[in-house]
């Protein structure tokens, strides 16, 4: 019977193409896999921080800074703009966390508006998201400056120079000296928050691109706002990484 009653069992045609078992577009999938690889990169940084920290003797936080002892983060990050000399541990970084979470919320609202083809709402929420990103970056710039310039009190340490031990003083931190503790502490601060800050910066650029395309009606003509969703995934990931940085760099 060469009659064309093709009885196909379910699943038999899977290899002929045209099926999407993951039920997501190519772009969205690739964004997910990129984010997974990026998660590995950030984990590498944070876990190495854990290793180096565990390999150092810890400061009790009761006496001043000591370049041989790993500092307690709340003793290092206790400054807030315009409140010079007031000890407010972790307050500023808490504010930064709040800003980033809020910008994640406005992003998800932009995605929701995109689903409804509501161009005006997408524009509004994208602008809020961009504003949140820029605010976060500005806060980080202030924090870096404060960290680099240092607090008023110098930390003393001994160094072996030309065959003899001499006492030196250091204020502030960079990739060569560090008043708060071991050199590695400052290096990790710059690398981890810097790498994250660079992600936020790229995110702001991408968000702006999305905003621009929304305003010029590109997605309206395309008939869907999936690009908002893809960049949204990236933006949430940046927020996610900050949640981990906040815990493992600032709180623990």
């Amino acid at each position, binding site marked *: 019977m060469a009659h064309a009653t093709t009885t196909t069992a379910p699943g038999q045609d899977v290899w002929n193409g045209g099926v999407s078992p993951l*039920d997501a577009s190519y772009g969205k999938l690739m964004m997910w896999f990129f984010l997974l690889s990026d998660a*590995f990169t950030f984990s590498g940084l944070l876990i190495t921080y854990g290793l180096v920290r*565990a390999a150092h003797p810890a400061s009790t936080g009761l006496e001043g800074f000591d370049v041989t002892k790993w500092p307690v983060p709340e003793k290092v990050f206790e400054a807030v703009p315009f409140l010079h000399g007031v000890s407010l541990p*972790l307050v500023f970084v808490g504010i930064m966390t709040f800003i980033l979470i809020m910008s994640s919320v406005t992003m998800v609202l932009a995605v929701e508006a995109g689903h*409804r083809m509501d161009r005006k709402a997408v524009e509004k929420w994208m602008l809020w998201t961009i504003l949140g990103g820029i605010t976060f970056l500005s806060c980080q710039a202030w924090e870096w400056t404060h960290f680099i310039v240092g607090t008023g009190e110098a930390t003393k340490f001994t160094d072996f120079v030309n065959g003899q031990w001499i006492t030196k003083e250091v204020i502030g931190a960079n990739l060569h000296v560090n008043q708060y503790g071991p050199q590695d502490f400052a290096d990790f601060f710059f690398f981890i928050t810097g790498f994250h800050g660079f992600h936020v910066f790229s995110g702001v650029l991408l968000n702006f691109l999305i905003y621009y395309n929304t305003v010029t009606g590109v997605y309206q*003509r395309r008939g869907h706002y999936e690009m908002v969703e893809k960049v949204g995934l990236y933006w949430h990931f940046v927020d996610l990484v900050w949640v981990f940085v906040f*815990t493992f760099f600032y709180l623990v």
Partner: protein
Amino acid sequence: MAHHSEETEITVLPPDKEKIKKLWTVAGILGLLTGFEFLIAFMMHHGPLKTSVFVVMTIVKAGYIVGEFMHLRYEVKVLFWSIMIPIVFIVWMLVAFLYEGMKLSDINFLN
């Protein structure tokens, strides 16, 4: 621009009140958890217990961000697991590196 604008009618749907309310609830939970973390930072003494509380709260927050905001909870199972399973490698790296770090501490700072 080569685009000639076809005047296709675009219907703007009204906001999904239910969905938006849910998103704000998630945002509220994230804010609350961050507030708690902030309080615990000062109320508890440093030690393994404090660290585990932080780790648990962080994982809960991560779950909300990835599950709700990034919508992973509602994707098909294959996609969900192809993102979640590789995380095992991170867990293993964490365990191995922290163990190594403590050993290094023993070697470098023998008391």
